[in-house]
């Protein structure tokens, strides 16, 4: 009993050590979590979507039946090498499409490393900027590689052969919060469909709903790491997913995923996968059946 209390105190001290109060002494950085790679598999005729464990952040690799590769986000700054290692382990040595969903470091942080290290054909981002070095590094990498960024917004098609893939958000041109600029991707292959929502919050969800676009999807990448700012009741009802993926780090200081989001998903009977608990999660489908594998 005494020991338990002691452990608890140590854990609390450990968590508190990540928080900065005042500004004289920045605390040390967290170590990058290790990604456990699933073994490479045949991709001919199959669509594979990898929800890569990059700790607190998003990184999603889409491998199409026609052999094209799309990367959606690349985790924090510290995850650049983790991303490169994962991509290479999956036989990905070039990217047809790179999407930076919105200019927050837990989504675009590792993108500069990816852009600098692998050949990229096209890159899409919503028309929004941030002032961080993390974001500026991405623009600099784009510039140095002689690339041009195409604007991600509702109605823009993503050129992937053999499946339907397009942006369904952002619906509007300006938002107060950068999360709502999130490029939301809807991908259809046979009877399976994926909705990749970035950090889109309730405001953007409401606009997707009123835009009249079909939202019903087999798989939902839950918005904003399971925060209560996203997954509004109406939106979840319209998407009506079978599976939900929440991408987040263990012991994150923001209490993601929020209890009310988990309650909503559980009430709706959705099977939940979490990168903090399941590691990297890979969905493989021929357009009919779905196979799910996880890293740990």
């Amino acid at each position, binding site marked *: 009993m005494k020991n338990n209390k002691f452990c608890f105190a140590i854990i609390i001290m450990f968590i508190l050590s990540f928080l900065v*109060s005042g500004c*004289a002494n*920045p605390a040390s950085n967290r170590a990058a979590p290790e990604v456990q790679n699933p073994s490479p598999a045949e991709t001919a005729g199959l669509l594979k979507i990898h929800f890569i464990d990059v700790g607190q952040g998003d990184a999603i690799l889409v491998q199409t039946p026609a052999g094209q590769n799309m990367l959606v986000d690349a985790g924090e700054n510290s995850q650049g090498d983790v991303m490169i290692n994962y991509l290479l382990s999956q036989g990905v040595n070039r990217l047809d499409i790179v999407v930076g969903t919105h200019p927050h470091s837990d989504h675009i942080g590792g993108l500069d490393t990816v852009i600098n290290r692998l050949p990229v054909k096209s890159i899409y981002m919503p028309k929004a900027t941030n002032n961080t070095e993390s974001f500026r590094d991405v623009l600099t990498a784009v510039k140095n590689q002689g*690339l041009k960024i195409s604007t991600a917004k509702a109605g823009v098609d993503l050129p992937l052969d053999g499946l339907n893939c397009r942006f369904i958000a952002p619906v509007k041109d300006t938002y107060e919060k950068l999360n709502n600029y999130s490029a939301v991707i809807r991908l259809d292959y046979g009877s399976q469909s994926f909705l990749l929502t970035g950090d889109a919050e309730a405001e953007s969800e409401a606009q997707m709903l009123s835009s009249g676009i079909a939202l019903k999807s087999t798989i939902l990448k839950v918005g904003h790491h399971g925060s209560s700012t996203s997954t509004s009741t109406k939106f979840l009802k319209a998407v009506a997913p079978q599976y939900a993926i929440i991408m987040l780090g263990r012991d994150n200081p923001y209490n993601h995923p929020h209890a009310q989001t988990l309650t909503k998903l559980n009430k709706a009977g959705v099977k939940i996968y979490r990168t903090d608990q399941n590691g990297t999660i890979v969905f493989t489908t021929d357009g009919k059946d779905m196979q799910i594998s996880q890293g740990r």
Partner: protein
Amino acid sequence: MSKGIIDRFEGDYAVVEIEGVMKPIRRTDIPGDAREGDVLTCVKNRWQVDHVATAKLKLEVRELAEEVWE
């Protein structure tokens, strides 16, 4: 002297980029009107928004963005 740039807000925290690393800082420890992208400077162990530095940086980023956007 510490300097930081606000990347985003998460619940009760601002996530601030300090020397290239993201740190969660309690919202109550930074000015209430601070926004995403604001430059913060540490003056007498208190965070303040440096409006001049923020405007300058914003302009720089916009110019770079215009260069690399299609």
